[in-house]
């Protein structure tokens, strides 16, 4: 089935059927089913969802929480916006099933400030589900209570990182926490917490109704099911596409009508730049990690300019808490500017590569660990082009080459 358009998330499904099935089962059985489906987190990191739920279920705590990460901020990603707009009930149903499985009565959707205009629709959807008794007290007579509230962010990319998100939910600066302890043990207000991406929750109702086996047969061995891809850039038909995991870059490009493609950024700013020689690679956790964002660049594009845009993004969005990320992103951007001006010697480029490796290892959270990705992959793929570029006019006495 690899490479074909499929519909799990975008197919119409009556709300409540999956939930009714779920609450007729034991929590352990639901978790076993999610584990068997091999569903992995769709936010980018790909942590096994069933295992996360199991950890929370087994954790000790008077209260537990289910948090939906709707802080979609990765450049080039807009799949969650579509789900939040068109399929909010699938998200909430997935959250309720999760709540029942792990023993939580409260769900929180952390909605990014940029999507504030979606809040009303979400609040209405919750209201309707409460009226149908799919949320609220004693859901469908089962004795299970589950409520969901919408919490608005205030504009910070780093809050997409789960522990930064939890800090923000607690009304603090969105700075990542030290791990361990992980949120499964000590999350929102110190309670065991499941944090899953919008898209992850949306697969849960389908897994409940159609079974784990059905889901695990789609996609690849390590990356089961389908995935939403937000595709933008130099393509004829940008938009959100649902494809089986393991679809190759080539297939994606064909589907969206991309011509003269020079490079594809898979996974947004923190993803990897893929050049033509690698277009036959599959997008899956085993190969090119599927973040959800695919940005296509045609042959007229200047990749150093693209890289500069990404690095400026990271400099702005780094929370500044840890040194490798705060200083590293800044130095990498500075390096890109030197390359623009023809002032970056190959020796200094090697130094920057070392720095990028250091950031990868030593940054506190995903932001700093992934920020070097575009730097390394764009430089590696287009080194010739970058080294041979026409330098921007400069006064050589004032601005010498950096070695």
């Amino acid at each position, binding site marked *: 089935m690899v490479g074909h358009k499929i519909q799990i998330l975008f197919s119409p499904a009556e709300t409540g059927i999956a939930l009714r099935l779920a609450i007729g089962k034991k929590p352990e059985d639901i978790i076993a089913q999610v584990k068997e489906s091999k569903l992995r987190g769709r936010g980018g990191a790909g942590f096994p969802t069933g295992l996360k739920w199991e950890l929370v279920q087994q954790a000790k705590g008077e209260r537990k929480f289910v948090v939906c990460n709707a802080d979609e*901020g990765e450049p080039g990603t807009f799949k969650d916006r579509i789900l939040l707009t068109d399929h909010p009930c699938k998200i909430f149903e997935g959250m309720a099933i999760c709540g029942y499985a792990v023993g939580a009565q409260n769900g929180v959707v952390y909605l990014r400030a940029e999507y504030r*205009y979606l809040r009303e629709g979400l609040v209405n959807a919750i209201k309707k589900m409460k009226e149908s008794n799919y949320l609220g007290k004693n859901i469908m007579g089962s004795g299970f209570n589950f409520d969901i509230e919408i919490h608005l962010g205030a*504009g910070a990319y780093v809050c997409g990182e789960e522990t930064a998100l939890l800090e923000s939910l607690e009304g603090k*600066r*969105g700075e990542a926490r030290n791990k361990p302890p992980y949120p499964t043990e000590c999350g929102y207000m110190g309670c065991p917490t499941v944090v899953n991406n919008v898209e992850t929750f949306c697969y849960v109702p389908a897994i409940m109704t159609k079974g784990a086996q059905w889901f695990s047969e789609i996609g690849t061995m390590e990356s089961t099911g389908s995935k939403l891809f937000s595709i*933008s850039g130099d393509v004829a038909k940008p938009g959100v596409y649902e494809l089986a995991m393991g679809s190759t870059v080539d297939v994606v490009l064909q589907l969206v009508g991309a011509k003269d493609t020079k490079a594809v950024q898979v996974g947004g*700013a923190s993803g990897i730049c893929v050049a033509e020689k690698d277009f036959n690679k599959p997008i899956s956790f085993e190969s090119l990690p599927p973040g959800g964002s695919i*940005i296509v660049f045609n042959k007229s594009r200047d990749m150093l300019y693209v890289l500069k845009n990404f690095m400026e993004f990271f400099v702005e969005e780094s929370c500044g808490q840890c040194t490798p990320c705060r200083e590293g992103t800044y130095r990498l951007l500075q390096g890109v500017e030197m390359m623009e001006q023809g002032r970056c010697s190959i020796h200094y480029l090697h130094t920057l590569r070392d720095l990028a490796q250091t950031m990868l290892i030593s940054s506190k959270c995903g932001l700093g660990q992934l920020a070097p990705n575009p730097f390394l992959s764009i430089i590696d793929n287009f080194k010739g082009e970058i080294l041979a570029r026409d330098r921007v006019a400069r006064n050589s006495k004032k601005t010498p080459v950096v070695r």
Partner: protein
Amino acid sequence: MKLESRNNQIAQEVIEIVEKYNFQREKLLQILEELNDSYGYLSEFVMKEVAKNLQLTTTEVYSVATFYSFLNTRPKGKYIIRLCKTISCVLAGKNAVANALRNELGIDFGETTSDGKFSLEFTNCIGMCNQGPAMLINNDVYYHLDPEKAVEIVEKYQ
């Protein structure tokens, strides 16, 4: 005297909002968001009042307020135009739209018009990448922009 009575009024309004959230520390972000909506920005006075009512230090409140790009600690225009500057919108023609907005309003990005009506800012990805260039004006989203369309939208807010 006049300032004092204005401040008393603000202090009262802050108490009302903090009370609505049961004086809970973890509601600080929502409290600041509401106050930011009412006054357009969070003045030093407002932050001090919030701190007092939540029994926090002013520094703590300030540190939260300055962390998030949608909270203002300085006065801004009535309408904040946030044009997306992330790469997909750039590929779709963001630079031309940016120039048109600059020309129309007579200010640069990061500035506010002298009548206090518009602030012009760049923002990072707002998730409209398939329909770029895109911008937010306060909470409303506009997409598939070109210079002409952008300027006409701004004109409606004049």
